[in-house]
């Protein structure tokens, strides 16, 4: 057995208890949801079953990378881990795969339990779609998990990593929203090019699982109706028409997985526990959120002060000091000063 296989096996054995606990919690969540969510309406039966299992998958895709990779944020731990005779990228692969196995086990058990419950509970749903949903949702989970691993891996501390994950979850949405509203609509007077719906639909980091679930939930619920089209969820139809976005997310996931291993191998051990200076961290996130919020509330008012305070707090948190850098002040000033100037000029 190679060192990698032994370490992978070790990681799996170490995560047994965690997997069992999470499986029990996931089962409780899914079975409670399936029992309480089947509602028999006038001529149509609805369920939020897939949503519950998709929520479990979504949570796991964010939580497991944090648990699997937190050990690499501690320099004392790296003194031990990095002298072991194993290549760093293989060590990272062992953690990445171990996390995937945990997600697979927890999700599969929850999914099968949910499926069986639906089979025995009602014949109103088209459960033949379940296997396809299971496979596609696992792939969507793989995409989100890979992106979450990359984002968390970019941080030098666990707290920064969690914050990066939280902020990146809506970063693309915020960015696209701002571009659409203020660049396309306000500046270019273009409203058709980039409809709002597609931004809201595909921007958040959990979108691949969420949108896939809405499509399949609709298929499962409506197909046995006499006139399925009359019951079709408008969101499901829209997501289906934008199905090419799944390919975009898959490409992002692939790039993130590659980026995760590439950056992991090259990351200096001395950075663990230090300020998270990655370009994929505060450096992008603070101005992205700050500028977007300033553009959303384009008038100089109390919101400008709040955003200014938020950006400043962001930099204090980033630098772990009240002494921030000149470049941070310039970035804040670049957002605030144009608004002050514009207010003065319009007042004149």
């Amino acid at each position: 057995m190679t060192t990698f296989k032994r370490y992978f096996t070790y990681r799996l054995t170490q995560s047994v208890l965690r997997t069992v606990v999470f499986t029990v919690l996931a089962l409780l969540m899914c079975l409670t949801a399936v029992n309480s969510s089947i509602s028999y309406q006038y001529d149509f039966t609805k369920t939020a079953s897939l949503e519950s299992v998709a929520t479990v998958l979504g949570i796991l895709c964010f939580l497991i990378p944090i648990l699997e990779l937190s050990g690499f944020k501690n320099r004392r731990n790296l003194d031990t881990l990095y002298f072991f005779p194993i290549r760093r990228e293989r060590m990272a692969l062992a953690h990445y795969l171990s996390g995937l196995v945990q997600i697979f086990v927890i999700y599969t058990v929850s999914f099968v339990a949910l499926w069986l419950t639906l089979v025995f509970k009602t014949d109103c749903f088209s459960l033949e779609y379940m296997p396809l949903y299971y496979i596609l949702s696992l792939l969507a989970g793989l995409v989100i998990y890979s992106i979450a691993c990359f984002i968390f891996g970019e941080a030098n501390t666990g707290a920064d990593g969690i914050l990066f994950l939280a902020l990146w979850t809506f970063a693309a949405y915020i960015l696209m929203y701002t571009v659409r509203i203020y660049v396309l609509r306000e500046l270019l007077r273009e409203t058709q090019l980039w409809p709002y719906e597609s931004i809201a639909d595909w921007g958040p980091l959990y979108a691949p699982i969420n949108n896939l679930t809405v499509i399949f939930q609709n298929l499962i619920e409506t197909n046995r109706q006499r006139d399925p089209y009359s019951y079709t969820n408008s969101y499901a139809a829209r997501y289906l028409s934008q199905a090419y976005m799944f390919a975009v997310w898959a490409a992002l996931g692939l790039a993130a997985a590659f980026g995760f291993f590439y950056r992991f191998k090259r990351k200096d051990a001395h950075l663990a526990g230090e300020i998270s200076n990655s370009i994929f961290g505060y450096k992008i996130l603070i101005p992205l959120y700050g500028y977007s919020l300033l553009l959303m509330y384009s008038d100089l008012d109390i919101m400008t002060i709040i955003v200014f305070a938020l950006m400043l707090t962001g930099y204090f948190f980033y630098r772990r000091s009240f002494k921030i850098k000149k470049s941070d002040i310039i970035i804040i000033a670049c957002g605030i000063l144009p608004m002050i100037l514009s207010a003065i000029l319009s007042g004149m």
Partner: protein
Amino acid sequence: MIEIKKLHHKIDGNEILRDINLTLQEGSVMGLVGINGAGKTTLLRLISGVYTAAEGEILIDGVGVGDERARESLFFLPDDPYYTAHTTGNSLFKLYKTFYPHMSREVFLSHMAGFKLDEKKPIRNFSKGMKRQLFVALALAVKPKYLLLDEAFDGLDPLARLSFKKAINKAVEEEGMSVIISSHSLRELEDFCDSYALIDKMTVTSSGDIAEKINSFCKFQLAFTEEFEESVFSGLPYVSLEKSGRFVRIVLKGEAKRMLSALEELNPVIVEEMPMDFEELFIHEVEERGHNK
């Protein structure tokens, strides 16, 4: 053999180590000495592969330390090894066994028993010295060809130091293990090591055989019949001189016999050779390089 060639290292743009060239022969025990912040821990982290050198190379039996095969023969015991609230000796053994399949459970347990440690107890309740003994037990069970110890005697009481040194010495003698050990306890290193490397101002300023180095200096205590000027010693190659009335204590660079003859020419009432130790030598070395006296 561990060979370090033209090693340079920077952290966040700051130069930490510059042009390090060092060789650890097989079966040798080398003491790594230097003032605080000299770069001893960084050098050990580089040798163990925890850090990647900016420039230069580190070869373990001819193979670069970046190659996992080279690290199979290494064991690095950091100053403050990591553990969680639930870590026990057994759980650590399981982790290390993953990477060193030949690791001996019997050897581990015998050393744990020798150190009077319980392998089932969480190590969060252990003292620093006990934790260090536990990791030494792990290291000895791995039977590495090269053992790297950072601040090895830190937190150990005199008895623990003795058992620690005995265990390492035994492994050196019986297994032919080579050791690099960084410590500020120079008296301990003098007993324990056969060679040394002094890191100062980011580079190895002095290295070699400890006994040879000590023998290249000599120390004398002299008494004169009347007060005298320090200038009477100006013709001698002294590195330190402490004068108190008619008495003087002097450290000279050179062979003791030759220096004794030279001192006798100054007609002292008493001239007596005193033993020179590694710590004293270290202090002279670093003071000579401009550190505070």
